[in-house]
């Protein structure tokens, strides 16, 4: 192949605005690329640069901000941005590979396939590293389920996640479902995958060794998903980009997993790389950047499922379930024999070199020649930042303006059945959460726990993020998101050791959205430092807007916790009548951003905050108490406040409780400005609180530990009976459980 500049291929005319819009490049970016290259771009090059410089691949808007996260730690084996996912040491020579990624825009257009291919994509990020996927989690946000469109989107998304995960045989062990009008038309689908691997088996996605062949295997290439990455970087995808959604095949993915894990141990395998956003383009560019620096591709050799694909389309197709293997020259046959056995089509489509360039050939002619360095170094932007004016208004909240409900029992039952509080079983029972025979704590508790076969260890997994709180106070919301995810894994007895995060925001071109992004990241970074947990991987999803308004700033934190001794774990359900019920921790009681305020009073207001020092102490206390075997149950106090947390522990254990006036006494003791109200005490959502139950013989030891750690610990009441008696509340366990069990299924339209 001669070089493009030498051969003087037809120079491309200056692209029209429409062409640039098509590839999602600004005029400035186009000129920047031409300037760096020293010549105009060919049409194929234009598509390649557009894909690589999209926010989805290039992190143009977020990269400078992401540097605020702590990313290092003694357990980090593969850090953020180094490979397809992060890897963390969990002892015994084993590592967890983890990452979360969004598939919001495709899911808004075609919910079933959009969500399904989100699961497929995150799985590939994990097994590309050589790890066997052992768990999936899905953090979902839907618009108000009162709208038929939101219900249709929710049904499709839940169905697609189940369809893909169930078939591929990786358990879906956790996640979240939150509902709010704010996500109307722009649902969020964040899929997290966790894999297990021995340290020495970690494989890089690198194209090294000049002359080594590049083998494409898995599904054939079609026209599906063209411009998915650029599409995810544009506002309101539905307006102009129908048809870009990809279609998944979980059976093919299952074959890919098994084939990849089989070739992993073959010395002739140099590198493995998946094809994700921008398809072949980012796949080969990233592999070359991590390897010998250059790569050449012959698009004629790419197996197709459609006639008449142009080189441009081949390079940018986002057909699913495709992988690349870089293999030592001369050893292709031993690798492809494995693919043949699994019934996977494979073809050598290119070769590694050290030219520093991506060279693409079609029909014997060179159609693109771009420096890899140019492609992986997208221009980054920092934007004007402006504190949103709405903050001053929404942060004002005077409880005196909030009428106290006349009948607290009725309010309690309504809250238990509210879509954001009711049992999640109608969703997670549609997912196989047990395949793999590792799931020790099923979904529905604070964190899922998986055992690690062949060791005494276990891992705890949780995803958390509260868009409403981040909307009200972005920095505190970011801190609270990390703290809650850590609290959830602490509640099962696990030590939080690593974070993967997905940042879902509106358009960063809006200075107030950019403020939210910067503040939430700052808050998350502060909390990660407080807990000593590094961020090892993540994803940014911007331009989440529908009909011109941004979604709430919604970070999703995926937390990995480690249980050195699986036997020392704790579940959320009460165990035995007579056990004491205690509240550990306790911030200022408040209604800020609470589900109660939103659900019962239709208000999103207040200024949430968290004391990280107190939070760290609280989590240390609960882990130590579990480690010493003192606790019968532990449960995070979150949406719906103390009353709902107590009820959930009762439901999980199938046994009631009596707290005559415990919560009120607590609240009065902490009351600020003399405000002590039953609704605030019962349904307020101050962070840093955990409800535990303790056998009589262990209660003094728990109280003693709390004194030493200077963490609040107050007795609320006693487990037992078939009623929930919580201060002024008194309802039967059956009635409460019925409201709680059916609430979400009813809201979803009876499915589940």
């Amino acid at each position, binding site marked *: 192949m001669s070089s493009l500049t030498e051969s003087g291929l037809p120079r491309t005319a200056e692209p029209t605005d429409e062409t640039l819009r098509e590839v999602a490049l600004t005029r400035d970016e186009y000129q920047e690329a031409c300037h760096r290259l020293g010549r105009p771009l060919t049409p194929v090059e234009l598509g390649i640069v557009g894909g690589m410089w999209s926010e989805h691949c290039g992190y143009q808007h977020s990269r400078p901000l992401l540097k605020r996260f702590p990313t290092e730690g003694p357990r980090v084996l593969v850090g953020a941005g180094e490979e397809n996912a992060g890897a963390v040491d969990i002892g015994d020579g084993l590592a967890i590979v983890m990452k979360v990624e969004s598939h919001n825009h495709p899911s808004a257009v075609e919910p079933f396939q959009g969500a399904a291919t989100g699961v497929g994509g995150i799985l590939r990020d994990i097994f590309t590293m050589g790890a066997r996927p052992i768990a999936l989690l899905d953090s979902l946000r839907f618009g108000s389920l009162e709208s038929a469109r939101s219900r249709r989107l929710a049904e499709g998304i839940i*169905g697609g996640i*189940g369809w893909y995960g*169930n*078939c*591929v*045989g990786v358990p879906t062990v956790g996640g979240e479902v939150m509902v709010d009008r704010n996500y109307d038309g722009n649902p969020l689908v964040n899929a997290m995958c966790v894999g297990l691997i021995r340290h020495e088996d970690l494989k890089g996605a690198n194209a090294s060794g000049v002359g080594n062949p590049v083998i494409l295997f898995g599904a054939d290439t079609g026209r599906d998903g063209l411009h998915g990455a650029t599409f995810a970087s544009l506002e309101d995808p539905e307006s102009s980009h129908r048809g870009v959604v990809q279609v998944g*095949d*979980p*059976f*093919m993915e*299952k*074959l890919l997993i098994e084939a990849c894990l089989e070739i992993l141990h073959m010395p002739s395998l140099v590198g493995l790389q998946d094809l994700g956003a921008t398809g072949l383009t980012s796949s080969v560019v990233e592999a070359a950047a991590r390897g010998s620096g250059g790569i050449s591709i012959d698009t004629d050799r790419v197996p197709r499922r459609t006639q008449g694909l142009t080189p441009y389309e081949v390079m940018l197709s986002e057909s699913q379930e495709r992988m690349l293997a870089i293999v030592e020259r001369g050893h292709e046959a031993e690798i492809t024999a494995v693919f043949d056995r*699994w*019934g996977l089509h494979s073809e050598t489509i290119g070769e590694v070199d050290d030219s520093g360039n991506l060279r693409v050939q079609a029909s014997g002619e060179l159609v693109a020649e771009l420096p890899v360095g140019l492609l992986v170094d997208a221009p980054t932007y920092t934007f004007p930042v402006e504190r949103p004016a709405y903050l001053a208004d929404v942060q004002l909240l005077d409880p005196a303006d909030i009428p106290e409900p006349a009948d607290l029992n009725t309010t309690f039952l309504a809250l238990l059945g509210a879509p954001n509080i009711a049992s999640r*079983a109608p969703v*997670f*029972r*549609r*997912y*196989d*959460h*047990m*395949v*793999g*025979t590792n*799931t*020790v704590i*099923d979904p529905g508790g604070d964190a899922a726990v998986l*055992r690690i*076969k062949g060791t005494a260890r276990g891992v705890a997994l949780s995803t958390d993020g509260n868009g409403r709180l981040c909307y009200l106070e972005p920095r505190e919301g970011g801190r609270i998101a990390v703290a809650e995810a850590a609290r959830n894994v602490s509640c099962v007895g696990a030590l939080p050791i690593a974070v993967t995060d997905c940042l879902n925001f509106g358009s960063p071109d809006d200075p107030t959205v950019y403020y939210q992004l910067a503040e939430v990241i700052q808050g998350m970074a502060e909390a990660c430092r407080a807990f000593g947990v590094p961020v090892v991987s993540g994803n940014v999803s911007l331009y989440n807007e529908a009909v011109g308004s941004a979604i709430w700033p919604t970070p999703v934190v995926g937390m990995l916790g480690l249980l050195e001794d*699986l036997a020392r774990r704790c579940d959320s359900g009460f165990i035995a009548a007579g056990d004491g019920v205690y509240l550990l921790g306790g911030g200022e009681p408040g209604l800020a951003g609470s589900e109660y305020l939103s659900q019962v009073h239709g208000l999103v207001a207040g200024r949430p905050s968290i004391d990280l020092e107190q939070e760290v102490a609280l989590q240390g206390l609960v882990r130590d108490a579990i480690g010493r075997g003192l606790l019968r149950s532990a449960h995070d106090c979150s949406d719906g406040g103390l009353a709902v947390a107590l009820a959930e522990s009762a439901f999980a254990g199938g046994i009631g409780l009596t707290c005559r006036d415990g919560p009120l006494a607590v609240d009065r003791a902490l009351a600020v400005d003399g405000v002590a109200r039953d609704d605030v005490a019962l349904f307020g959502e101050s962070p840093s609180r955990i409800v535990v139950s303790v056998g009589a013989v262990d209660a003094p030891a728990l109280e003693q530990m709390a004194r030493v750690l200077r963490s609040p610990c107050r007795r609320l009441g006693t487990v037992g009976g078939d009623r929930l008696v919580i201060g002024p509340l008194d309802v039967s366990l059956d009635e409460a459980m019925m409201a709680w069990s059916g609430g979400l299924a009813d809201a979803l339209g009876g*499915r*589940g």
Partner: protein
Amino acid sequence: MRAAVVVFPGSNCDADARHVLTEVAGIATDFVWHTQTELRGYDAIVLPGGFSHGDYLRTGAVAARAPVMASVREAAGRGVPVLGICNGFQVLLEAGLLPGAMLHNAGIDFRCEWVHLRVDRTDTAFTNACTEGDVLRMPIAHGEGNYFAPPELLVRLEDEGRIVFRYCDPDGVVAPDANPNGSMAGIAGICNESRNVIGLMPHPERASEADLGSADGRVFWASLLAMVTA
């Protein structure tokens, strides 16, 4: 003794079945690939759960025509115990080794949850260590577990005592509320005439260790060992 776990492309409970057979039951176990045609030397055969061939066409339909199935049929004819779990049950139905068919769950959706099973027959290869009426707690995870048999077949199964497990409540009462998928007569598992081939939708391999929430499934492996080593 030696057991075989048959692996079809898309099987995903194959490793779970082998884990339980080797680590819990202490039975040496091999994976057998779907194209293999030699099953001599195995004292038991397990068809595991999963989505063989993606369950494209119909659940179990493609796998039922795999080369290995002729050998499974031959081994079953020799009296070798054969256990089909979930997708493995569906494969046995499609292969004609067990009668009847699977429909979509009555509630349409895939269901993964804990259920209770009543053991109605203890004269089979995998239930001889049970007492009639025992209640076992196990998970299900399927979208098509709604067992269907034409009326005359159902009568025959009842008469011949081939309904081995029925969904029940924790007290062993077979009732519509305890049936997760609308299965006819609450059927969760059946056996062949010779009582050595058993298929069921629930997963005993997921309920054989206390850490996983139930060890009730161990009775399957105890029964198998008792029968083979008797």
